């Protein structure tokens, strides 16, 4: 009698929002996520094939990113012969006129280093880091002279200095104009902009010495649970018993082995055959439409 490997998966995270400013990284470097392809169906033959690769002691092979090694066709064929059942709550989407998986909100960490913060929080130590010791000493000396007060670093925050400079109309002072020109020549325009242009006040966050990025954001994620039934032979079972026996699917979804069952103990009435699940990606659709 035919034997089947039954797997259950829990908490597989599926991100629908592909129009983020995030990037996809592979051996070619980085590509903006909205430029890269993505599958319409949350789980298809490629995902199941990767689970099988891992369970049978191979590396998973990304299908939309480039790597130097290729998938093992035997496991891909096995994935096509499998059955899958996704057991997650669906809701009728009025605009799309079809049932869709519900999603929850989660906070995500922004990994990309150039999602620059818009916060113009500048303090003396940051200015010193930006200018270096020599220029910084020159600037404090000049500001002491212009404001006509000693220990300005002790008395005022850098933000207050900005207000004082503006209130006393020191921006028109030739000494300060010359110093700003020097800063621009030395590639420190961001500090000049902090004083001059409110719209560009946060430019200092883009300097490598004082870089500051947005470090988290909000995303919608759909969590999927379900079952995968895969036909196996005796050789596969032997290999599986020596493997690690765990894998992941989608974002952080855990795959557990339920066991090996004979055909008469399997009910796949609610399952879909994996080879019937479409492999269309959004870019493919656009091309077909053209």
């Amino acid at each position, binding site marked *: 009698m035919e034997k089947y490997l039954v797997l259950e998966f*829990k908490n597989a995270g599926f991100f629908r929002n592909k129009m983020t400013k995030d990037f996809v990284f592979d051996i070619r470097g980085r590509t903006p996520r909205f430029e890269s392809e993505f599958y319409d169906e949350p789980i298809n033959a490629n995902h199941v094939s990767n689970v099988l690769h891992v369970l049978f*002691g191979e590396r998973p092979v990304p299908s939309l990113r480039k790597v130097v090694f290729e998938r093992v066709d035997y496991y891909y064929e096995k994935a096509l012969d499998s059955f899958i059942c996704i057991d997650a709550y669906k809701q009728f989407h009025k605009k799309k006129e079809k049932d869709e998986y519900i999603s929850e909100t989660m906070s995500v*960490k922004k990994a990309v280093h150039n999602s620059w913060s818009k916060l113009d929080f500048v303090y003396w130590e940051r200015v010193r880091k930006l200018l270096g010791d020599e220029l910084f000493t020159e600037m404090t000396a000049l500001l002491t002279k212009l404001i006509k007060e000693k220990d300005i670093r002790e008395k005022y925050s850098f933000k207050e200095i900005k207000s004082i400079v503006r209130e006393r109309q020191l921006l028109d002072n030739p000494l300060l104009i010359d110093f700003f020109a020097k800063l621009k020549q030395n590639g420190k325009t961001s500090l000049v902009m902090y004083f001059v242009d409110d719209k560009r006040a946060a430019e200092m966050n883009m300097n490598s010495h004082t870089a500051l990025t947005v470090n988290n954001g909000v995303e919608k994620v759909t969590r999927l649970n379900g079952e995968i039934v895969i036909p196996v032979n005796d050789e596969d079972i032997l290999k599986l018993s020596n493997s690690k026996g*765990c894998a992941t699917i989608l974002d*952080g979804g855990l795959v557990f082995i339920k066991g090996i069952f004979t055909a008469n103990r399997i009910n796949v009435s609610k399952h879909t055959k994996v080879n019937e699940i479409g492999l269309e990606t959004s870019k493919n659709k656009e091309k077909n439409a053209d």
Partner: protein
Amino acid sequence: MEKKVKNILLRLNLEGYGIVNYDSNDQKYILNEGKEYNKDFRNNSSYAKKTFYNDENGKQKTKIKISKNCLKQSIFKKDIPFQCPNIVHDDILLYSFIGSPASMLRGFLFAKEEAFKRKEAFSITDAEQSCNAISNLETFTRSGQKNTDEDVKDNSFFKKETVGDIKYSAHGNIDLEQLQFVSTDPIFDRLTFNPDKFNLFSKFMKQRMESFKSELGYYKMKTSVVEIPEYGFKFSNEDMLHMVKYLFNMMMELTINRNGGYAVTSELQYKLVYNPLEDTRADENGWVSVKTQKDIDKLDFSIEDFYVVVDEEESKKMRSAILDNYQVAKKKTADKKESKKPKKKDKEEVAEAEATV
């Protein structure tokens, strides 16, 4: 022959009071479809994170949960109180973060010119409600000045989902194969860090794990048909045990505190997997309960060697063609990007032409 552990399954039970993990307000659109008593159309309501089910009659059923992200943040909060991508700008900060058992277990992604990433070795599901506690939308008021503009509606009332005593349970595993090897190879899509900085990594790792003595080398997966050796290093059995014990300690100390609620670990169970087809999650045999520090200290087992060392010269020969192609591909991408950017000279010419017009 000595039996070797291939994987560790985990069961985590939590107990607490009140809600500790909230979802966004968009949940009202899902809730309004079903349950009546938590129905609310207003925008100033907070809902607990939930799992939704259909019961036998097709009616909506919910269970309160703590998301896996919240659990992981709380488990590792002692070593990783927050994650900040800004540390990529400073090697000391970056390698201090990467060179720790917490990072090796939890995984990370840092992207600058190159992306440094490591997949999590410790995975856990959402902790789902395991008791019959029923939540309720409670009305609260907040202090503070109200909006005095007559045209703008404002009130100090808001609604928040609350619950009394509650229990949760979660499942997880420690992928020992994933934990065992750290790749420093750009061609395998899992570059953890720059191999040139191995000494810096090693310095930080030794501070946190004295037994760490691994060296870089070429390894291949024992079970894989892909013969290409991968550059990286392998943790010893002692190191792996240290990390497993560290994780168990963190899980036992898990506490999630929030204004009006808390959740703490009530029970941690583990199961060593020797044969994945026999030692399954559903099988009740083999589960061991961790109750005290002694239970963690006495943990001792041999872990399967998933990777084997390959001779360096042989590895270099096998990899030469791939590395050459990799460099060509990288150059092509760089050239492509460069050609997309308008050159400075072109920009100036355009500006001049515009000025003339």
